[in-house]
């Protein structure tokens, strides 16, 4: 059996003798006999090599696609070598939440730098140290806007379905009404929104670019929210933020999003990274960990977890969130990614995503796979297709993970990872499959 216990049988005996106990069973005398178990029905333990073989066998049953044109909330981007090299450092991996500031300045500074970078990207004033993922960040953002007399949240139907589902769960939990704002031609129906908004509106949530990859008119939606006295929340793609009008520029009160595109692998859906930012006015409503700058008693610059009066370990049942961790290692990866890319690199990735998506969209258009919507998009788009499966099967056979089948069509995603050759192959394979 495998074990990570350094104590030898002799040392164990020595410790038991010191405690005046005859055997280890005596340690558990207070556990009633009725709930004691004899043996668990678990497999026998194994050596490291044995376990490795078992895990590798399971991994081998998954198919890794060398070419991916699927996004819909999880995006394959290039991860610079330096990112994994930094996040593989043992101390970053094994350290705890930096409660003991004096011996955790490195982690605290890395979070402070991450907060700054996320503020820069979103154009917002303050950021927390991150949360679980984009969906829970959206749900926490909605919770930040809840007031005694404002208990209706609005979310656009063009939002990623997982995010809507998660926000719905959190709203149901808290007894807040959630209104789904209908879509029109793939975008948020602003006319419908203006009729739906009432004086109990707490917030309006819009995803930019939206689930179909389309660019929403966020400034207009934000203005409508504000006119109704509600807060405006944007859920953004952090890569797109390098070229699209930022939440700060659109007048958002809160901006959140899925940070996975910033240097995190797909990993079958997690761990990812929820980033959360807000205006200064909403700073004290931000949930989760936040790092601030201060000084030590000699006056040296130092960093520390701050604004803890918001948090559950102090406020207990009066806290508005139970969030008490962050995705520090993922935030670290995102920080290294953004620093490695720099402002120009971020723009380069975004521009390549957008340019290549347009190339594929045009190519597919050319073989009769027409776009479902008109207007500007970022790196995702929907083509109309009544029977997507034969196309996707043909692509799969060629080692290509095609777009995601959605109602009435296929949702494609193109990133800087996709080459012109790959896209030409997709177009050719689809053409052949459609001809059958």
């Amino acid at each position, binding site marked *: 059996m495998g074990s990570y216990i350094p104590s030898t049988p002799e040392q164990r005996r020595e410790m038991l003798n010191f405690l005046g106990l005859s055997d280890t069973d005596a340690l558990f005398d207070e*556990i009633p006999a009725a709930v004691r178990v004899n043996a668990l029905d678990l497999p026998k333990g194994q050596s490291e090599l044995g*376990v490795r073989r078992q895990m590798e066998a399971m991994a081998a049953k998954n198919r890794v696609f060398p070419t991916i044109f699927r996004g819909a909330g999880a995006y394959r981007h290039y991860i610079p070598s330096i990112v994994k090299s930094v996040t593989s450092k043992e101390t970053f991996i094994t350290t705890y939440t930096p409660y003991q500031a*004096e011996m955790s300045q490195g982690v605290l500074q890395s979070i402070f730098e991450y907060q700054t970078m996320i503020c820069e990207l979103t154009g917002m004033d303050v950021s927390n140290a991150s949360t679980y993922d984009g*969906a829970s960040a959206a749900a926490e953002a909605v919770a930040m806007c809840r007031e005694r007399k404002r208990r209706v949240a609005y979310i656009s139907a063009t939002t990623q379905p997982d995010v809507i589902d998660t926000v719905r769960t*959190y709203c149901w939990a808290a007894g807040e009404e959630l209104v789904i704002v209908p879509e029109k031609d793939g975008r948020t129906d602003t006319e419908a929104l203006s009729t739906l908004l009432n004086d109990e509106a707490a917030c309006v949530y819009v995803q930019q670019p939206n689930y179909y990859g389309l660019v929403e008119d966020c400034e207009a939606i934000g203005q409508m929210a504000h006119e109704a006295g509600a807060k405006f929340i944007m859920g953004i793609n952090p890569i797109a*933020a390098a070229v699209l009008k930022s939440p700060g520029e659109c007048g958002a009160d809160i901006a959140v999003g899925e940070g996975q595109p910033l240097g995190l692998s797909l990993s079958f859906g997690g761990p990812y990274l929820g980033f959360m930012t807000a205006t200064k006015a909403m700073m004290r409503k931000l949930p989760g960990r936040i790092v601030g700058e201060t000084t030590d008693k000699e006056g040296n610059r130092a960093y520390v977890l701050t604004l803890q009066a918001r948090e559950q370990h102090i406020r207990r049942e009066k806290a508005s969130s139970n969030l008490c961790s962050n995705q520090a290692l993922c935030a670290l990866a995102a920080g290294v990614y953004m620093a490695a890319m720099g402002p120009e690199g971020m723009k380069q990735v975004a521009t390549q995503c957008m340019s290549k998506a347009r190339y594929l969209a045009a190519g597919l258009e050319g073989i009769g796979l027409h776009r479902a919507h008109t207007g500007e998009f970022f790196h995702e788009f929907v083509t109309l297709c009544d029977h997507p499966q034969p196309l996707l099967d043909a692509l799969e056979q060629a080692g290509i993970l095609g777009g995601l089948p959605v109602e009435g069509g296929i949702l494609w995603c193109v990133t800087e990872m996709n080459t012109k050759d790959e896209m030409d192959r997709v177009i050719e394979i689809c053409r052949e499959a459609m001809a059958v």
Partner: protein
Amino acid sequence: MKLIFEKSVPGRRLSLLPDCDVPVCKLPESLRRTTPIGLPEMSENELSRHYSALERRSFGVNNGFYPLGSCTMKYNPRINDEMSALPGFADIHPLQPVHTVQGALEALALAEQLLCEITGMDHMTFQPAAGAHGELTGILLIKRYHAERGDTERTEIIVPDSAHGTNPATVSMTGMTAVSIESGPDGRVDLDKLKAVVGPKTAGLMLTNPNTLGLFEKDILEITDIIHKAGGLVYYDGANLNAIMGIARPGDMGFDCVHLNLHKTFSTPHGGGGPGSGPVGCKDFLAPYLPRPVVEKEGEGYTLDYERPLSIGRIKTFYGNFAIVLRALTYVLTLGREGIKEASTQAVLNANYMRKKLSECYDIAYDYTCMHEFVMTLSGLKKEKGITAADIAKALIDRGIHPPTMYFPLIVPEALMIEPVETESKETMDEAIEALLDIYKVACADPESLHAAPLTTPVGRVDETAAARHPKLRYEG
């Protein structure tokens, strides 16, 4: 040390991407971002040195003893990280067709089976990303259970005053009311006080067992019975499961659902605050309410079942922190039947060894045989010498030891909570005991000197009050 922004030089950059191989497009001006993005401009060498310097100014389990009570800072086996990073796991898209991810679904199903066996539960979801997220999920299962039965008057969740702050905060997030009960004189749930608060409004009880004082709730069968008879359900906060694996199971104690902290009990790393994983297990009758989708066996293979009409819905995208679950699975497969029990046994032995050794000088709150952790109170020393729990903690830093959890649980004044875990050697514990006993002597002889600690760290004690009063949460240039 300089911030990364202070090291930035305009024009410096890495060469990461080839030129675009298709015509370059731009967004129309009206949609374009105009504000510059103030990210650092660095070379790779400088980046590497910057983060190496930050690593040196941090402290992990790899650097030394970490007896942080309630956090179970056990050794994080490296094989776990390596297995989770296998391309067959790390490079698969969450929305691939299920026939191309059978290994991933098998891993989730196997982890569910093994962890259900350890906890005595019937089903498990891996969607929750952390313990607090698991609490939210579990309490929502209870809320949905009562709602489905039309039992809408049940709005109270009982929480002992020794509980983690997340428990009452979770209850508030679910629109219910946390009812706090005072612990009895022995540090455990007081049955009379419990009986006095249960009633037709009781939706459930959240309980950590062993509790945060490191004591096993020996009346556990009576406790769960009282709640069940009142019509409520019982939630197991799995923060302290490391004490009882292979010895006793929450499912046999009458708990209806549990959350686990894979980053505590199941050896996955803490990562400086995450990512963790907080799976929730439940008994059969709560399974219809689990978050969707659920992994199901179908013939020879596995599938994802989204058709769950009674589900509480989602609490996260996709299927949870998959790569963390893989680490925990690797760990359970390594330890196996005997190793799992041995881990808990050794954890409890180590805690009792340290408790008895330290009781020479220090006051132990509720000084009985403990489980995997125990709590010391420094209130005597504070009264006599003006030395606080924080002073002792900071002095430990200078001796290369991460301090215990401070000022928790709240019911013990000047608390220091010590959890040595099973992966620490007797020599390491003996050194820490010696350090603590020595610090005690210094506290008695020269208390003033301890207020200055720590002296060996890059910065001295930080001004938390100033940080909160004038929040500076980002670099401003």
